[in-house]
């Protein structure tokens, strides 16, 4: 069994819009692999080409260049789709159906027998916490409930690979946590999860590897630990000054007032030991000391900025 469940190889998509057939390059170059059993994050700002890439992988949009393979077969392939679950961005479902009816329809599309469909639908409705709403038409569902039934329909075919397009968008913190937990559960069950997002804290909590796309071009692919530099960016010291006040701050340090006292942000090259000795000698009380290394947000902003500068 191959270790790679999804491969995008130099994918590109150009749309031609309007009467003058204006060229819009939604995706310029997307190459990445998703490995079996991992949670893979596909990150990028709004309009960067995430959804178009996923639509190419799902066979909804035909690539202008490149090729894609899902579960060892070229896209679109019905055999591969049998082992795949997909939740589109801001999903819309047949709102006149109840969750049971909708999941029954999806099950039938996977050629699941009627009795099995019912059992699976019951299990999934329970799993996504919609038992109390099973008889209610989807038009009466909140955004969070729709997202949950969306996840349930993505799991109806018992897929090996689950692809979720912006699953956290529009959810409150509890809803986001539930989706995160569900993705981790799927991973524990041995399934592979690929999801697109621009909500970075969720990525740090869930993803084994990520790909970042900016203006239609993939900039970074790999494990977060490799993408984020280990180098120190700054050291944050929280303290309450003593009666003697503060000693002179090292060059480049910033002083920020906080309810508990002061936050001193020391540059990476500052002598932290010497500074601590000086403030303690001046009678200050040090509450905390935090070395700040590059976060996913820093990397994301750095890449987005360099992409924008490159474009101008």
């Amino acid at each position: 069994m191959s270790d790679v469940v999804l491969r995008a190889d130099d994918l590109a998509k150009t749309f031609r819009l309007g009467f003058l057939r204006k060229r819009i390059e939604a995706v310029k170059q997307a190459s990445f692999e998703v490995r079996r059993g991992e949670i893979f994050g596909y990150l990028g700002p709004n309009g960067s080409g995430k959804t178009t890439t996923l639509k190419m992988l799902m066979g909804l949009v035909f690539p202008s260049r490149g090729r894609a393979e899902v579960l060892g077969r070229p896209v679109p392939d019905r055999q591969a789709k049998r082992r795949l679950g997909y939740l589109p961005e801001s999903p819309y479902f047949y709102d006149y159906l109840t969750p049971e009816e909708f999941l029954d329809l999806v099950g039938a599309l996977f050629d699941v027998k009627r009795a099995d469909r019912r059992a699976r639908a019951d299990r999934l409705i329970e799993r996504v916490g919609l038992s109390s709403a099973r008889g209610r038409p989807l038009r009466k569902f909140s955004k969070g409930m729709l997202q949950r039934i969306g996840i349930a329909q993505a799991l109806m075919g018992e897929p090996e690979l689950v692809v979720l397009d912006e699953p956290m968008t529009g959810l409150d913190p509890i809803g986001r946590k539930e989706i995160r937990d569900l993705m981790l559960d799927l991973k524990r069950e041995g399934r592979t999860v690929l999801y697109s997002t621009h909500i970075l804290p969720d990525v740090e909590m869930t993803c084994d590897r990520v790909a970042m796309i900016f203006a239609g071009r993939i900039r970074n692919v790999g494990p977060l630990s490799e993408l984020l530099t280990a180098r120190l960016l700054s050291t944050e010291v929280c303290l309450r000054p003593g009666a003697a006040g503060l000693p002179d701050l090292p060059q480049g340090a910033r002083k920020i007032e906080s309810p508990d006292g002061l936050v001193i942000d020391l540059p990476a090259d500052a002598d932290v030991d010497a500074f601590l000795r000086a403030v303690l000698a001046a009678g200050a009380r040090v509450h905390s000391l935090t070395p700040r290394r590059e976060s996913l947000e820093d990397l994301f902003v750095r890449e987005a900025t360099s992409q924008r500068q490159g474009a101008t």
Partner: protein
Amino acid sequence: MRRIQAIAWNTFREAVRNKILYSLLFFAVLIILSALAMGNLTLHEEIRMTRDIGLFGIDAFGVIIAIFVGVNLLYKELDLKTVYTILPKPLHRWEFVLGKWLGMLLTLAVQMGVMGLVLGLTLWWQGAQFDTPMVKAVWLLFVNVMLVTSIAVFFSAFSSPFLSGFFALGCFLVGRSVPDIRALAAKLGPLAKTVLETGCSLMPNMHLFYPSGAIVGAEELSVHRDFVGASYLLTSTAYGMAYSLIVLILAMLIFRKRDFV
């Protein structure tokens, strides 16, 4: 087969839960029942009036519903983005189009069945029967509606509902007038005649499905007499099905190549 059946059943269920269709059905039934009042204005022609107005109601509302629902059939899936959830499932795009079309036909069959039932009850109330000519006439109208649906679905595979409706209605009106256009062509010069004859050959001849009053051979066809024979019924049905199939295959080919942005 299970996948096509699932899409067809869902399309039917959507139509059954759509209040607009009930309104159209209500008006169709109202027109059929209006034949009772209109009949009183005639001299001993009440039953003839009920048959004519009843068939007109089934025909007109069948076509209106076919165009109205047909042009929205695929467009609505794109507009409401439900297609993004359904097409990534293990389903061929042609299966999706075929399922939608079959669901639509089932809806129309039920609607026309209800209209036929109301017409039958009206005739029974007047002491007449919903006899074999009437059954044949309603069957031909159903084949016609199937053809209109296929044409509406074909246009909706690549254009907006407004344009699709406009084109489908145009095809229906021209298709119904094929004998008149041919008669006109016979009186024109060779170039105009060739153009009109070619046009008539390409357009669906929907006059075949509403032949009451037409002269075939030396005899006038009428639902009030023997109407058409089995061979006419068979050839017209085969023509309607073949034309529908060709148009539907074209719709599937267009749908197969579409990007769902």
